[in-house]
Every structure is written in C-alpha cells, then in structure tokens.
C-alpha cells in the first residue's frame, strides 16, 4: 500500500534525523586530522581512543566518579522514594495535592534557579566541592522522579496481598521480602535505571556544587571540547552515552508500552 510506504519513509526520515548528530562524534573519535573541506578524515587512527582509555587522560577516573555519584544518588533515591511513592499511591490524606506539587517543582524549575543559593548553603555545611555534596544536589532532580514513578507502580499494587500474608503469620519483613518486593521489583528496576541516567546527565548542579573539584564525565567532556580536541571529545562522548543506550535496550519494551511515562523522568 502506498500510504504504508509513505509512513515507513517518514518514520525512518525522522529516526535518521534524530540519530544524525551522533555520527560526527563517531567519525571524529577515529579521525587523525579532519580539516575543512574534507568529507572524511585524511587518516584513521585509534589514538583518541587509546588516549581516552589511558590513565593520564583522567577519563577513567571521571567515569568512576560519575558512576559512584549516579549509583549513590539512585540508591538513596530508592531508599527514600519507594516509601514515599507508596504513600502517594495507597493513602488518601490532606495536602496530597501540595505534596505532589512539591515533587513536581524541581522537575519544572531550572536548576540554575536554585544552584547559587544551594551552593551558599552547602558552603556553610562544608559540602561544597565534595562528592557527598554533589550526590545530595543530584537528589533534587532524581528523587521526585523516583517517587512519581514508584507511585505509578504502587497504584497497580493490591495491598490486600500483604494483609493476607500477615494474617497467615508472616512477619513484616517476610511480608515485604516475599510479597511486596516481588510485585514492585520490575517497576523499581526500570525506575532505578532511569534515575541513574538522570543523575548521569547532570551538568550544572555538578559544576555549581562540585566547583570543578568533582570532575564528572560531562565536565571533562566540556573541557576537552573547549580545548578543541575534537577526536578525544568524540571518544569521551561515546563512552559517556554508552550506559544510556544499554539502559534503553534493556527497557525498550517497557518504554514503548504504557511505561512511556518513565520517559517523563528524562525530562526534556
């Protein structure tokens, strides 16, 4: 059918356009000299990659720091956010609208609106320029996301199952471990993966609170970019986007389905 072919064409044109900006990064990472007006590099080389992966470039160290920050932020957000998500989904209470508004506020307000003031507060608390400070700051965009997604997960959970387990003699811990956790685990895993990515993508909060002393990958990437090292930028950028692509492949089905809501957390 003609309409069908037209749709296929339009959809792939759109997809192509969306992938396009990544191509020059891939080419640059293997380029050895690529001056205007050459369409392709004069020479190919693995120099940028071997430099990026060598200890002296600092890329591996940044990779480690970025992973620690995102991992710790996600863990904290899960510990704090799962109970809160449950409360939002399964309890009725006064002020619920206000709580939801407080949760939405950090996802709408630009980070720069609070970064300066937060730096002042953290400076006094001795948290400015520290890893702990950056992790706490990352909770601002990550925690609301975790709570809202877990609220959606708990909305499909029937607390009667817990009551039944308890009436059959399960302790609260057994009840959580064998009834609640298995029910929410798939949702929790997806929420955690995306929460990890929200922290992974932060630039401004890390820069403002870390003050350049907590050198995550995006900060390092920017400094290579301002130094005009395009080949190294290409390699570092690809290392930096890899976890996101892995997460996307792992969760592709749930994102296409009704879980598209999860994308809301990767807010714009």
């Amino acid at each position: 059918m003609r309409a069908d072919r037209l749709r296929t064409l339009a959809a792939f044109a759109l997809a192509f356009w969306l992938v396009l900006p990544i191509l020059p990064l891939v080419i640059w990472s293997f380029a050895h000299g690529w001056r205007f007006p050459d369409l392709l590099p004069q020479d190919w080389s693995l120099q940028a990659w071997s430099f990026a992966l060598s200890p002296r470039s600092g890329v591996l160290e940044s990779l480690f720091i970025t992973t620690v920050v995102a991992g710790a932020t996600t863990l904290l957000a899960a510990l704090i956010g799962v109970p809160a998500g449950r409360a939002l989904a399964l309890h009725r209470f006064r002020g619920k609208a206000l709580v939801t508004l407080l949760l939405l506020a950090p996802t709408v307000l630009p980070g720069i609106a609070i970064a300066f003031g937060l730096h002042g507060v953290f400076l006094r608390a001795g948290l400015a320029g520290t890893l702990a400070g950056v992790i706490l700051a990352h909770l601002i965009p990550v925690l609301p996301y975790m709570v809202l997604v877990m609220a959606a997960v708990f909305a499909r959970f029937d607390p009667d199952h817990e009551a039944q387990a308890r009436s059959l003699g399960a302790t609260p811990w057994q009840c959580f471990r064998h009834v609640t956790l298995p029910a929410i685990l798939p949702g929790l895993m997806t929420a955690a993966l995306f929460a990890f990515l929200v922290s992974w993508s932060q630039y401004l909060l890390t820069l403002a609170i870390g003050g350049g002393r907590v050198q995550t990958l995006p900060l390092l990437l920017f400094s290579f970019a301002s130094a005009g090292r395009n080949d190294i930028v290409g390699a570092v950028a690809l290392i930096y986007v890899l976890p996101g692509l892995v997460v996307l492949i792992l969760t592709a089905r749930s994102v296409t389905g009704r879980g598209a809501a999860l994308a809301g957390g990767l807010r714009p």
Partner: protein
Amino acid sequence: MTDRTRLALLLAPALVILGGLFFTGLGLTLLRSLRYSPGLGMTDPDFTAYTAILSDPGFLRSLALSLWIATATTLIAATLALAAALLLRRTFPGRALASFLVQINLTIPHIVGAIGLFYLVSQSGAFARIAHAAGLIEAPADFPALTQDPYAIGIILLYVWKELPFITLILLASLQSIGEDHEAVARSLGATRWQAFRHVLLPMILPGLAAASALVFAFAFGAYEVPLILGAHAPKALPVLAWQAWTDTDLASRPEAMAMAVVIALIGLALLAVVARGLTRSGASDAR
C-alpha cells in the same frame, strides 16, 4: 501504629530532604538577591539588584533571547511531536524499529547532543563540507552561521532535536490510553478525518500536550550547557549571563546573579502551574 504515623513515616524522609534542599536553595537565592547577607555586614534588604538588572539593556536582551529560544523550541517541537505521534500510532512496515530509534536520543545528555550538532552544522561542520563538495560554497565563511548566531538557531535546533522524542512519547502514551474508538464513532457519524482529529482527538490529548510543552519551555528557557556550547558571545542566553555574573571576580555582581536566578525561578513557577493543571486534567496516569 496508627495509619497517620505510618503515613508520616513513609513520606517524611522524602519531604524533609527534598523540601530542605529545594527551599533552602531557593530561599537563600532570594535573600541574597535582596542584598541580605549578615556575614558581609549587609543587613538592610533592598531591591537594588533588581533595579540594576531591570535597567540593564544587556539583561533585557538576554531575557528576550531566552524567551525567544523557549517559545520557538516549544512551538516547533510540539507541532512535530504531534505529527510524529500520529504517525507512529499507525501500523506500517518497520514501525517497531522506527519507534525504537526515535527513543534513542532520550538517553543522550544535552551536552553530547550540543557538541554533535556543532560538528554537524557549524561553518566548518559536516553540512558545510557537503555544501563545499556540491560547489555551493567556497570557504567556511560562506556557509550560513547556524551556531553562535544572533537568532540562536543552533540552540533551537538542538532543543527541538532533543525534546521532540520526549513530547512524542508522552503523546503516544496518551493516545494509547484513549484508543481509537472515539474517532471511529465520530467518523461513523459523518465527521471528516480532519474534523475527527480537530474536535474529538485533539481536545483529549491537549492537557498532556500542554504539560509536556510547559516542561520543554521551562527547560529550553533555563538550561545552561546548551547555550554555553552553541550560543553567541552576545547576547548570551539568560542562564549563561546569570552564571557569568555569579562567577564574576567582582563580588558586587553576586546579588544581580541571584536576582536573575529569581527571575528564572518565577518563570519556572508560572510553568509549574501549567504542568500541574495539565497533569490533573489528563488524569495524571497517562502523562506520569
């Protein structure tokens, strides 16, 4: 344990931590913008910083530029996303793959997209090279300036590229929960395809679209790293100007940086109202 204590225990950690970080950050920004800083001996709050920025043509130009970037981005991205969502809702050969590819850039951080786009559309970028190979231009300077340009075209391009899939997915989720029955009924009652879309489908997806658009507007207005990479030297986007004032060696410009942050926060709060309304009206479930 009563229900109330239980509820309080569940909610308290999240509210204390988030409220604590968010409101102390916002609160201190507000105090400093009013030039209240007892540590520096400034104990009489006043509006000097606000009058200073509001009478500064540089600030007003930056504010106008950021509003332009956010408005253009939102309109273009929302329109294209609506078309993309209506397209991806249909079945056609290769739909699954196309849907997957459309999601790819959701996980790509803005800073990576901005650098990639720069290599693509700058005056010595890939497009300029193709134009040269096609004999359209002689030198990089002949290629139209799409980055560091006064109209912020590069910035808008990047935001549209990045936010389009975001709005598309929100719309797809909303379309999926609505189903196709309403349109089918409208068509059977004699509505044209356009009428069925305009008077039946569009009103149903509008609250979700409005909420997603408000999020996009807020982001395009307040993000720092994208205009930092793709923006012109002057006028700077407002977040870049605010950051510059904040990191200025002259500490006297700090209150002005804080005042700019408050202006950004106020616009963010107005958008929050739009998002909250959109989410409650679309039944909260599909957009979140």
